[in-house]
């Protein structure tokens, strides 16, 4: 398998952010967005291709988790939080 290119990393970042925005719960949504941003920024300087590959794999799995949890959250959504406005 070819090493993950910059374009793949960018598109994974984009997909994770779009999926994280779909959380109905305010807490999960803000946490997911913050965690995705922080994780990508912290690992941005990694050069070793094996580590990059491993991190990308983790990223894809986390993306699948987010997608499943968004679906579950939509089944049991509550009213909007006061903080959300």
């Amino acid at each position: 398998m070819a090493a993950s290119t910059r374009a793949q990393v960018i598109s994974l970042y984009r997909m994770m952010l779009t999926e994280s925005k779909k959380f109905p719960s305010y807490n999960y949504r803000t946490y997911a967005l913050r965690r995705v941003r922080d994780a990508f920024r912290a690992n941005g300087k990694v050069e070793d291709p094996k580590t990059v590959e491993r991190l990308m794999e983790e990223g894809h799995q986390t993306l699948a988790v987010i997608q499943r949890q968004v679906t579950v959250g939509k089944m049991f959504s509550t009213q909007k939080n006061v903080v959300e406005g």
Partner: protein
Amino acid sequence: MAARVLQQCVRTLARPSLRLSSGNLAFRAAVAPAAAIHRPLSFAADSRRTRWVGQSRSPSVGVLCRQYGDLPPLTIETIKDRVMYVLKLYDKINPEKLQTASHFMKDLGLDSLDQVEIIMAMEDEFGFEIPDAEAEKLMTPEDIVQYIADKKDVYE
């Protein structure tokens, strides 16, 4: 059905007390023909309460047109204002240093992840998807304005 609606429109429009809101009347009559005749007072109150987006209605009684909901038309100026407003709200950008020609990476010191976030904020603002291949080329606010104007067929 349409003939009955038009008849009721003309009948309600003939009343002098309701002449002020004739445009809203046309829409209201199209939606609730039965209610229009029986409740003239609440009618005027309703049309004052509702807010309509778009151009002002023609006051003439003869022109009955259906009002569809739509956004106000885009111009290059409004696109530029909205793009700059969204960029000023982003916390990693210094609002004083922001110009339409300032490059995100060279002038403002952002990296590619920030650029992705900015493009996603633009997608949310303008309500349409920007594909990855084209998004990575948009490096200044001027590029973004041009791209949106191309996609939305806005030209001057």
